[in-house]
């Protein structure tokens, strides 16, 4: 008897097979918004180099509704990426002290605390307070 194994093709339907795959793809898609926002910063630098009129036009564009929508979307995706990523840190960085491992909450919590401290420091240096 000869064997004839059947290989099922993998279609893009796997993304919708379970909510975990949708959440994963959202995390992956966040890079498009974060990458786009970084390109916008480069464009801003170019405008700054071109002189006061170009820089003023860039600042004007930042206040446009399209810019505000893009910023809100980017902030949402960046926050989602950061929160889901920090929640995964206990898996990647388990810390064994003596016999016991540090609880997951302590490792993720330390990352969230560092995130908050650094964010406030940057906002402070930027003169937000």
């Amino acid at each position: 008897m000869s064997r004839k194994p059947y290989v099922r093709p993998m279609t893009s339907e796997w993304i919708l097979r379970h909510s975990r795959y949708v959440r994963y793809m959202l995390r992956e898609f966040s890079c498009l918004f974060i990458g786009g926002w970084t390109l916008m910063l480069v464009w801003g630098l170019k405008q700054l180099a071109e002189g006061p009129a170009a820089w003023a036009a860039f600042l004007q564009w930042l206040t446009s509704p399209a810019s505000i929508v893009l910023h809100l979307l980017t902030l949402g995706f960046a926050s989602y990426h950061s929160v889901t990523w920090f929640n995964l840190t206990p898996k990647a960085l388990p810390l064994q002290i003596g016999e016991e491992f540090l609880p997951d909450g302590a490792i993720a919590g330390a990352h969230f605390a560092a995130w908050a401290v650094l964010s406030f420091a940057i906002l402070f240096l930027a003169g937000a307070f």
Partner: protein
Amino acid sequence: MSERPVELEVLRYNPETDREPRFQRYSISCPEEWVVLDALNHVKETVDPTLSYRWSCHMAVCGSCGMMVDGEPKLACKTFLRDYPGVIRVEPLAHFPIERDLVTVIDDFMAKLARVKPYLIPKEPAPQDAEYRQTPAELKKFKQFTLCINCMLCYAACPEYGLIPEYIGPAALALAHRYNQDSRDGGRAIRQEEIAAYEGVWECSFVGACSDVCPEHVDPAGAIQQVKIKSTVDWYKKHLMPWTKE
């Protein structure tokens, strides 16, 4: 003992007669406490003796009865029918070729498992007339990874393995990590050639599905990220501090 009607929709494939798999419906009556494996055994014994599937222990130890139940990788012996309202769709584990009905071809996994050398490669000769010494802390460092039963549910859950069949995959990588973490073992450098390669841990994009579906609560996703971090540290040490020993 109350019984209720259950509709099973099982993917069938006969390599001798079928060009491709097809679903077959079985209507049976099942006690409340039955698992999917009980229903399959009932079908095979009383309705259709041609139905093929793997099973052995019926107690989530042997890892033989992995299959897709309503699209999720599950052990058929641990999956209660009462948790599934409506028609229950039973398919062979995803991402593996189908040998017949619910039986998959697992040669790829077996070959990959052998490649990562999942056994103790002693650091030094075994103690004469004495046992190896290991502290509870040293044991705890790798204990969870010893619970893997090679059921391959993690491979069926991992989209990276489905898309890139060369990827070594979660269970084999977690088992390699288990031995790397063992205080008695000295085989890490040998295993690194397989697991720190492109087809090893670097194909993983941390979907995390492997750990979600593991019936023994092993955390292969964690093991893979830990190997990535250690391999990265190795790389920096080699390139920035070439005078240090590996």
